[in-house]
C-alpha cells in the first residue's frame, strides 16, 4: 500500500473523479472500498457506520458492502454502490473464500476494511500480510489478546482483574471476590455477566458451544463506559477519538456518546502501542472510567466500533483517515456528541426480504446478531485458538495449606479396611482454623468467638471448641443441650434462629438470645406472662439485611418495625434484667467479603437509633454467617470495616463483639473417602460414578470440593480438566465434582473429597441404602 503525501493534501485511495468533500481533498483516482460486517440492529456490526463515514468524506467513492447473509440488514442500505453477499459461514468453503477475497482485491485501487472480529483474525491467518486489507496482522493481534494486560501497561491504564483458571474452585473464589459480578468472556467474542459460580459454569458452556473456543473471567468494574477508537497504518497512529457512552441499549451497546479528543498522555501511549504492534486498520479500546477518573481497559477490538460514524459526524472521521492514510486537520469538533435513531429503509430488490426462520426452542427468533454465521466460523475452528480450549490444565495449582481448599490430603492417612464411603475427622484442622481466626481478631477490642453447633455437632468437635474457650451458638434447645453435654456450658451459650425455643420446655437458661421477628418478641412476652422461666444476660434482636433478600430478621430499616422492635425489646430487657444486643447474620460464602461487610455494617447501623429509643447503648453486637474457608485472610478487614462504618455505638460504647463465623472453622475438618464403581468414557470427556452420593456430602452439587486419589502410597490431588464425578444415587443433580482431569482414575480406585465438614457432615443423610426413615421404622 502506498501512503498519500500528507503535504500534498491528496489522499491516496479515495475517488478522484468524483466530487470530494473537504477536508480529505480530491482523490487521485477512482477506487473501491469493500467493507464487511454490514448487519445493523440494536447490536450492530461496524460496517454500515464505516460506509457512512467514507460516504461523508467522499460522496463519489465506490463503496461495496460485503457480508455473509442476505439477512445482514446493512446490505440493503443505499449508502452502498454495490454489495457482495457470500454464503454464511455455515456453508462457506475456506479455500474458495480465500480465492474470492483475493480476486475482489485484485484491482490496484481496491481496499478492504474488515469489520467482523473473527473475519479479521481469519484474514490475518489465511492471507497473512496483504497490502489491500486495512486490518491488523496476526502478529498485531497476538499482542493484544485477551485479557489485554500488555496493552493496558503500554497505555498506562489499569486492567480489569481476570481469572483464566476455569476450574470450579477458581471460579467460585473469583466470583465470591467480585462484589459487582463477573463477565464470562469468550476468547474471541461474546461476554455475559454472571453473579454466581453456577451461572459462570453454565455461561462458559454456552460460549464454548456457540463459539467453539475457550473463555475466561473478568471482574466487573463499576463506572462510566468509555471507548477510544483509532486508525493506524503500518504502526503509525493516524487519528483517534475518545467517546463516553451517554446512552446504552439493554445489551450495553452504545446509543449515544460524548465525543472528545484524546489527552496527550493517552495519545502518546496509544501511539506507542500501535507502533509496537505495527497495527494497521481500525481498533477500539473499551474502557471504564471510575468515579475518581481512573481508566480500566476491558478489551481491545481489532476493528472500528459500530458507533464510529457518530465520531465522524462530530468531525473526527477515522475510517476516512484510514483510507486517506492521514488525519484531516480540524479546528475543534462539529458537535459535542452523537445519538442514534432508528430508520426504516426499503429492502434491496436483489436480496428481497427473507421470511421468519423458526427455531427448535419453539420461540420466535430474536433479532439475530450473527446472521453471517460468525459463531459457526468459531465452531469450525478455522481461526487458531488464542489460548488452549482448556487452559486450566496448564495452570499450576495455587499454593495451599492443609486448612485451605486444597491440601487436606496431607492429613489423611492411607485408606483402611472400612467400607466406603467413609467419613474421616481431621480434628487438627479445627484448632488450626481457630488459631487463624484468633489472630485475625486480635487487637479489634473485646471479641468472643462462638462455635456454630449446627455446622458440626460431633462430640469431638464440641469438646475441642470448649477446650479452645469458645461458646456455643445454637439454633434449638436440643443443640444447646448437646453443646452443654460436651463442655460448652448452656449458661454461656447463644440462641439464634427462628425456632430457638424448640423443643418446648418450661425453663431456659442461656447467656444471650436474639429474636428473629417481631412475632417472636411478642410471643416471648406472652409466654413469660404464662410462667415460662427464662434467664439470659443479654436479650437481642436479629436485624434483617438491608439490600439482600432474607427470610430472617426484623427489617429495622423500616420505621414502623424499628419502633415496635424497640418497644418490645426494651420491655423484655427490663423484664429479664438483661442488657440488650443486636445481631446480623448472612452467609459470607454467598456474598463474598466485600458485600458481607457492607451488609453487616448497614444492618448493624440500626443499633444507634435503637439505643436512642431504649436509652442505653447495646452491650453486644453479634455478627455471623458462614464464612468461606478461603476467606480467612479477609476476616480482620471485614470486621474492621464493620466497626469503622457500622453504628457509632460500636466505637463509642465498647460493646462485646461476638463472632459466629460458622463453617470457616469446621468445613475442613472432615474428608469423605469413596471408591470408583464405574468409569464411563466418551469422545470428549469421561464420567466416573463413585459409591458416595449427595447424601454423604449434601453441598457437593453446589460447592466445589477438592478431590484426591490414592495412588497406592499417597494421596494425589486431582488436577483441573473437563471430566465429572457422579454420585451413586439416581438423582440428576447428584454430581459431586466437575471440570476435573480423571484420566488417571480407574474403577476400584479410592478417592477422597476434602472440605466435607460443616453442613456436608451435619446435614448428611441416608439415601439409596435401603434404610427407612425413623418414623416409619418405629411403626
Amino acid at each position, binding site marked *: 500500500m502506498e501512503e498519500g503525501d500528507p503535504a500534498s493534501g491528496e489522499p491516496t485511495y479515495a475517488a478522484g473523479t468524483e466530487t470530494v468533500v473537504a477536508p480529505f481533498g480530491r482523490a487521485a483516482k477512482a477506487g473501491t472500498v469493500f467493507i464487511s460486517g454490514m448487519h445493523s440492529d440494536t447490536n450492530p456490526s461496524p460496517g454500515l457506520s464505516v460506509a457512512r463515514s467514507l460516504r461523508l468524506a467522499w460522496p463519489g467513492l465506490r463503496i461495496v458492502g460485503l457480508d455473509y447473509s442476505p439477512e445482514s440488514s446493512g446490505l440493503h442500505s443505499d449508502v452502498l454502490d454495490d454489495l457482495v453477499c457470500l454464503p454464511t459461514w*455455515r456453508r462457506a*468453503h475456506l479455500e474458495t473464500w480465500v480465492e*474470492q477475497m483475493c480476486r475482489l482485491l485484485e484491482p490496484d485501487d481496491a481496499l478492504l476494511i474488515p469489520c467482523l472480529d473473527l473475519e479479521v483474525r481469519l484474514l490475518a491467518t489465511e492471507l497473512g500480510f496483504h497490502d489491500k486489507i486495512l486490518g491488523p496482522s496476526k502478529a498485531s493481534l497476538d499482542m493484544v489478546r485477551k485479557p489485554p494486560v500488555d496493552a493496558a501497561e503500554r497505555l498506562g491504564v489499569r486492567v480489569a482483574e481476570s481469572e483464566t483458571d476455569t476450574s470450579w474452585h477458581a471460579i467460585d473464589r473469583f466470583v465470591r471476590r467480585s462484589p459487582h459480578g463477573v463477565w464470562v468472556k469468550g476468547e474471541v467474542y461474546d461476554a455475559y455477566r454472571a453473579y454466581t459460580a453456577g451461572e459462570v459454569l453454565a455461561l462458559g458452556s454456552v460460549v464454548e458451544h456457540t463459539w467453539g473456543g475457550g473463555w475466561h473471567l473478568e471482574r466487573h468494574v463499576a463506572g462510566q463506559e468509555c471507548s477510544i477508537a483509532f486508525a493506524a497504518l503500518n504502526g503509525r497512529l493516524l487519528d483517534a477519538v475518545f467517546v463516553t457512552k451517554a446512552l446504552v441499549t439493554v445489551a450495553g451497546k452504545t446509543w449515544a456518546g460524548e465525543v472528545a479528543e484524546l489527552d496527550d498522555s493517552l495519545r502518546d501511549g496509544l501511539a506507542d502501542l500501535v507502533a509496537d504492534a505495527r497495527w494497521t486498520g481500525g481498533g477500539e479500546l473499551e474502557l471504564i472510567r471510575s468515579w475518581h477518573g481512573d481508566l480500566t481497559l476491558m478489551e481491545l477490538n481489532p476493528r472500528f466500533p459500530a458507533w464510529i460514524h457518530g465520531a465522524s459526524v462530530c468531525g473526527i472521521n477515522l475510517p476516512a483517515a484510514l483510507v486517506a492514510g492521514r488525519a484531516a486537520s480540524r479546528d475543534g469538533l462539529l458537535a459535542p456528541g452523537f445519538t442514534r435513531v432508528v430508520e426504516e429503509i426499503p429492502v434491496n430488490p436483489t436480496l428481497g426480504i427473507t421470511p421468519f426462520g423458526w427455531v427448535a426452542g419453539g420461540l420466535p427468533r430474536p433479532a439475530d446478531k450473527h446472521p453471517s454465521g460468525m459463531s459457526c466460523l468459531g465452531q469450525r475452528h478455522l481461526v487458531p485458538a488464542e489460548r488452549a480450549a482448556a487452559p486450566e490444565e496448564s495452570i499450576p495449582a495455587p499454593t495451599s495449606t492443609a486448612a485451605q481448599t486444597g491440601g487436606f490430603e496431607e492429613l489423611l492417612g492411607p485408606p483402611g479396611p472400612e467400607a466406603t464411603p467413609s467419613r474421616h475427622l481431621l480434628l487438627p484442622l479445627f484448632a488450626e482454623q481457630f488459631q487463624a481466626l484468633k489472630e485475625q481478631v486480635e487487637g479489634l477490642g473485646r471479641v468472643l468467638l462462638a462455635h456454630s453447633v449446627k455446622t458440626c455437632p460431633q462430640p469431638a468437635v464440641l469438646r475441642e471448641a470448649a477446650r479452645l474457650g469458645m461458646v456455643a451458638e445454637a439454633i434449638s434447645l436440643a443443640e444447646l443441650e448437646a453443646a452443654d453435654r460436651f463442655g460448652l456450658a448452656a449458661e454461656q451459650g447463644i440462641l439464634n434462629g427462628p425456632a430457638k425455643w424448640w423443643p418446648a420446655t418450661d425453663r431456659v437458661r442461656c447467656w444471650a438470645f436474639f429474636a428473629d421477628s417481631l412475632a417472636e418478641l411478642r410471643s416471648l412476652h406472652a409466654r413469660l406472662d404464662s410462667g415460662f422461666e427464662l434467664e439470659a444476660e443479654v436479650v437481642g434482636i436479629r436485624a434483617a439485611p438491608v439490600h439482600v433478600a432474607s427470610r430472617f430478621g426484623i427489617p429495622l430499616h423500616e420505621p414502623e418495625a424499628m419502633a415496635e422492635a424497640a418497644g418490645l425489646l426494651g420491655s423484655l430487657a427490663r423484664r429479664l434484667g438483661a442488657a440488650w444486643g443486636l445481631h446480623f447474620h448472612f452467609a459470607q460464602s454467598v456474598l463474598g467479603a466485600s458485600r458481607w461487610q457492607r451488609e453487616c455494617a448497614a444492618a448493624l447501623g440500626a443499633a444507634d437509633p435503637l439505643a436512642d429509643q431504649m436509652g442505653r447503648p447495646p452491650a453486644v453486637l453479634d455478627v455471623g454467617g458462614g464464612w468461606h474457608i478461603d476467606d480467612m485472610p479477609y476476616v480482620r478487614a471485614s470486621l474492621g470495616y464493620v466497626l469503622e462504618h457500622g453504628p457509632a455505638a460500636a466505637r463509642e460504647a465498647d460493646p462485646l463483639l461476638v463472632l459466629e463465623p460458622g463453617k470457616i472453622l469446621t468445613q475442613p475438618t472432615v474428608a469423605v473417602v469413596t471408591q470408583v464403581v464405574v468409569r464411563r468414557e466418551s469422545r470428549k470427556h469421561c464420567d466416573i460414578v463413585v459409591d458416595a452420593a449427595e447424601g454423604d456430602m449434601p453441598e457437593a452439587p453446589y460447592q466445589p470440593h477438592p478431590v484426591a486419589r490414592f495412588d497406592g502410597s499417597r494421596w494425589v490431588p486431582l488436577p483441573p480438566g473437563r471430566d465429572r464425578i457422579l454420585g451413586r444415587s439416581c438423582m440428576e443433580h447428584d454430581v459431586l465434582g466437575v471440570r476435573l482431569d480423571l484420566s488417571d482414575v480407574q474403577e476400584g480406585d479410592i478417592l477422597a473429597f476434602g472440605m466435607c465438614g460443616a453442613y456436608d457432615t451435619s446435614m448428611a443423610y441416608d439415601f439409596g441404602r435401603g434404610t427407612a426413615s425413623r418414623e416409619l421404622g418405629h411403626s
Partner: protein
Amino acid sequence: MTGLLSELKRFERIDLSRVACHGTACCTAVRHRVFGRLMQYANMGAALAAVPELIRWGPVRWPAHWCDLPEGDGLTGDCGVHADVAAAVLTREAVPHTRGRAVLRPAPLAPAHWRASWTEAGAGDAWIAGRVVHHEVIKVGDQWWDPSEARWFSGAGAHLSGGRVLAVREEHGSWQLDSEASATHARP
C-alpha cells in the same frame, strides 16, 4: 430464460431424496438418534426447525443410507436429507404435505463454495448449475416450507437466504415460475 428452462428440465431428472435403510443396526440406530431427538418437540415449527439444527447442512453422496449421515460428533445432510426427515415428521403428525423442489438463484459468489465442498466430499454436484441451484422443499397447504432453513415461503418470487426462488414444483406437478420471469417468458 432459455437457460432457466433447460436447467429446469435437467433438475427434473434429479430424484427427490429418500434416505435408504440397510435394515440393520447401522441404519436403525441413526434413525433412532434422529427421530428420538425430534419427538421431544410438541410444537411442529420447533420440531421442523430442529431438523437442520440436528443435521448440519453439508454434502451427501446419493443414494444415501442413514448410516452415511454421522460425521464427527454430529450428522450431516443436504436439503434432500432435510426434506426427507421433515416429511417424515409431518407424516408422523398426520400433517398433509407433498414433497417438491425449488430452483434458487443464489448470490453470484456462493455456488463456487458449494461446488468446492461437494467436490471435496466426492458428492455429486448436479444440483448446482451455472447461476441457479436445485433445492428440495415441501408443500404444506398453500404454503411452501424450506426444510434446510426452517422457513415458510410463498413460492416462486420469494427470497430465501440461499437465494431468490425462481421456480417451484410439487412432486408430480408442474413448474410455477417467478412472476417476473413468467411475465416475459413462456412457461416450460
